[in-house]
């Protein structure tokens, strides 16, 4: 079902790196879980609409008007590295 290769790929998508041990453990555990999840295929869901969200709420809008907001300092207070109004990060390219 899900191979160590798949687990590697998924880990990359999720921006996670795994040790060889973790890779083996997760492969086994994810397989067990997915195998169990196979039981959903016992159900005929032809014509059944998916429920992503239980409430009949759609497009909850408000006026595009500024209200109370945090100050820049409050927003940047938890920054691991900052320079004035900027978050400092390692180089991207």
């Amino acid at each position, binding site marked *: 079902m899900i191979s160590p290769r798949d687990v590697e790929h998924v880990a990359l998508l999720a921006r996670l790196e795994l040790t060889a041990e973790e890779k083996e453990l997760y492969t086994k555990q994810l397989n067990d879980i997915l195998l169990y999840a196979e039981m959903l295929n016992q159900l005929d869901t032809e014509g059944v609409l998916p429920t992503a*969200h239980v409430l009949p709420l759609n497009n909850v809008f408000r006026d595009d008007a500024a209200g109370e907001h945090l100050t820049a300092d409050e927003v940047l207070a938890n920054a*691991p590295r900052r320079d004035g109004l900027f978050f400092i990060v390692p180089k991207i390219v």
Partner: protein
Amino acid sequence: MELTAMPAHRLQKLMRRREISAEELALAVFNRIDEVEDKVKAYITLTRDKALTTAREVDRLRAAGEYLGPLAGIPIAVKDNICTRGLKTTCASRMLENFVPPYDATVTEKFKAARMVLVGKANMDEFAMGSSNENSAFFPTTNPVDPRRVPGGSSGGSAAAVAAGEAVVALGSDTGGSIRLPASFCGVVGMKPTYGAVSRYGLVAYASSLDQIGPLTKDVTDCALMLNVICGHDRRDTTSVRWQVPDYTSFLTPEIKGMRVGLPVEYLGEGIDPAVRKVILGTADKLASLGAEVAETQLPHTRYALPAYYLIATAEASSNLARYDGVKYGLRANDAEDMVDMYIKTRSRGFGTEVKRRIMLGTYALSAGYYDAYYMKALKVRTLIKQDFDRAFTRFDVLLSPTGPTTAFRAGEKTDDPLQMYMVDVCTLAVNLAGIPGISLPAGEDGKLPIGVQLMGRPFGEGDLLRIAYAIEQLSVVGRQSSE
């Protein structure tokens, strides 16, 4: 009865009669914490000084003749995934170990406005992922009833604090049973309101279509009082509902004649401990003797709730937890070569094993080629599960079931097998998938270990849940003493 064992409504009477002060009450709670917290470990952060300041303010206001609500001066523990401005909010994760929110969650604003006394931030499973509170990155919480056993999760700290007298009431969050299960394991009352009834603004998101904040209390009356504080529409949460919040204490009448109680057979089958089954059936009999119409019913898609939940919740979690990247807040790996390396190292070090497992499961379920087979399929099954409940509620007012398949298990018993741990939630998951309200209250024991009974209700049917829960509670001597 010790002050720290009393429910809020009794304590409020004492305060109003000037028999005790809010300060005395706060001190009593902190003394209790000094006595037992080494063993229980319910809290990640304690806020003694601030609590005493708030308590003294309440006393001052009372002396000045100001109006004070029913929960003023009442000590509260708050799960550490609910934002408290200026106070560390960690989600029991290394990722947010030093994160100090610049804002209060809506529920935080509400309990502060009600002049409640914040005792501290309660321990939990990391990012609310777990059923035993063993997934906290810092330390596990123990069950006050038996310290070798788990308090349940993920709101284990909240439940343990209330059970141990280290808080009078608590707030937790429930995505798949995380309020109700620890309530059952610790012998307290825990409720997950209808989805949309309580604002999620300021609740660190796990699964956005399933998460709800709710109270953990010593009795049903306190639960009603807490709902009055936390429920209501919030502009800042677009998934919250505009509705008229009733006074929930108006439902606290032991008169339940003619109410229709359903017993879904799928919740009493194999896998349910005999001692648990006995208590549930016994409770059903008691309700019948009080004049309720009790009958068996079916919710045929029940067993598909677990796999559906673990695809939907993990898919949503993989998206919600993508924000933890070391850029703007939280942990950052400083030895990274470039941005992507920083993301990878930060996330790999910041997240615990269970969190990583769920992120990967969710990512897989949503990935190209698997989206239809897993995520979409699960969403369709969710519709079928919801329809089961809709049908049941045309014939019944509430549904009765166990909260957990067993009593509190021993620490370490299920940590090797994720699926075994997931199975602990079999009775609670469907409630979140359908978005309906659910409450757990103590209904019996196996030896010393509490057994909770679960009541499930229609959307916004918290009133019916409270009525039946109150009736059950009144049947026990302890319950009657509590409401004096």
